[in-house]
């Protein structure tokens, strides 16, 4: 299963979808991620400070056609990965696919 990949972050209290909505090859995504990871402007926690203490690590959101999965990649730097996968009845398969993407991104930037 392949899916869309995006980076979600918060800047000035607004959730950003830096990359999403198009099928992106991981290599392209990794190239896009590099400068963003180097920047400390992507502050993931800001929205939670506003809305209460929340942990969004391993969050799966079920839309009508797509499933969005958010992983925190680097807690120290408050960066997170959002995968957008086609909706499937097999939730375990979607988790597996999302984790695979997460692990690849983590390895690419290790």
């Amino acid at each position: 299963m392949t899916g869309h990949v995006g980076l979600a972050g918060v800047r000035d209290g607004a959730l950003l979808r830096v990359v999403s909505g198009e099928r992106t090859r991981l290599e392209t995504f990794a190239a896009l991620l590099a400068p963003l990871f180097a920047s400390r402007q992507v502050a993931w926690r800001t929205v939670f400070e506003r809305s209460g203490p929340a942990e969004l690590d391993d969050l799966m959101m079920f839309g009508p056609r797509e499933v969005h999965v958010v992983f925190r990649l680097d807690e120290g730097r408050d960066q997170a990965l959002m995968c957008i996968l086609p909706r499937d009845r097999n939730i375990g398969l979607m988790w597996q696919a999302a984790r695979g993407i997460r692990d690849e991104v983590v390895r690419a930037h290790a």
Partner: protein
Amino acid sequence: MRTYERALDILARVESMPGDTTGALCFGKARVLVQGGAICWAVAPGSPVRLTDLLRSQRHPPLSRDELEACYRRCRDSGQPVGEGLLAAGLVSAQGLRQALFAHTTEGIAQIAQAEQTYEGFVPHQRAGYDARFVFSTVETMVGLGARGHLARAALVHSTLASVLGPDTVGAGFVIDADGPRVVATAGSVGRGVNQVMELCRWAHSLFGVIGFVDDQTRVAQGVWNRECAVVTWWDASAHYVARCDTRAAATLLLSRIERREEELAA
């Protein structure tokens, strides 16, 4: 601070007391009687709800005032607790008595909160004398307070929880009003106390604030709460829901039940 929050503060105060404490929390002329971390009774001057009326309405047709008053007099003369006397005389069932006491207690606490009565201290009682069948946990009382004014919706939410929650899963349903989340139904032990239940509900509600930005069609989400357990949260036309699942399998089962329920409702 709003009325519901003030009422929850009273419940949190009860929870903060040592487990073996029995006595009365005093708020002006109002009292909340506690025993072993549970609430036995609350009474507030000027409350529009009278216990007599609540007891009468537990029967159909309603009990006559004369019957109730005769029982009160017998109990007063013999020293028997009124509840025991009502049960012994067969005037009310144990369930009916519990319902009446619960309604009176939640109303009393709501009145104390609404009147912004200041806590003035605790008067200990020498011994615990309340029948355990007729005392109420703080979370149960919180649900009763939340359901005030939302009784039909609370019944619907309770039915929804019962239909989708499976093994190893507990949950709560809440509505959002000007006071924020109000818990109207629970299934199982959702939290260790009112603050933990409210924290979970606020967290679930705040998720949709974030999720709505990503995909405003999203009605269901699964996450990890406090790095402890899988949480599934969803909403429908009646309420918001949050469920704690002990295992990922339990969360997956719940998600599939929610999905099936949505499909059935849409069909």
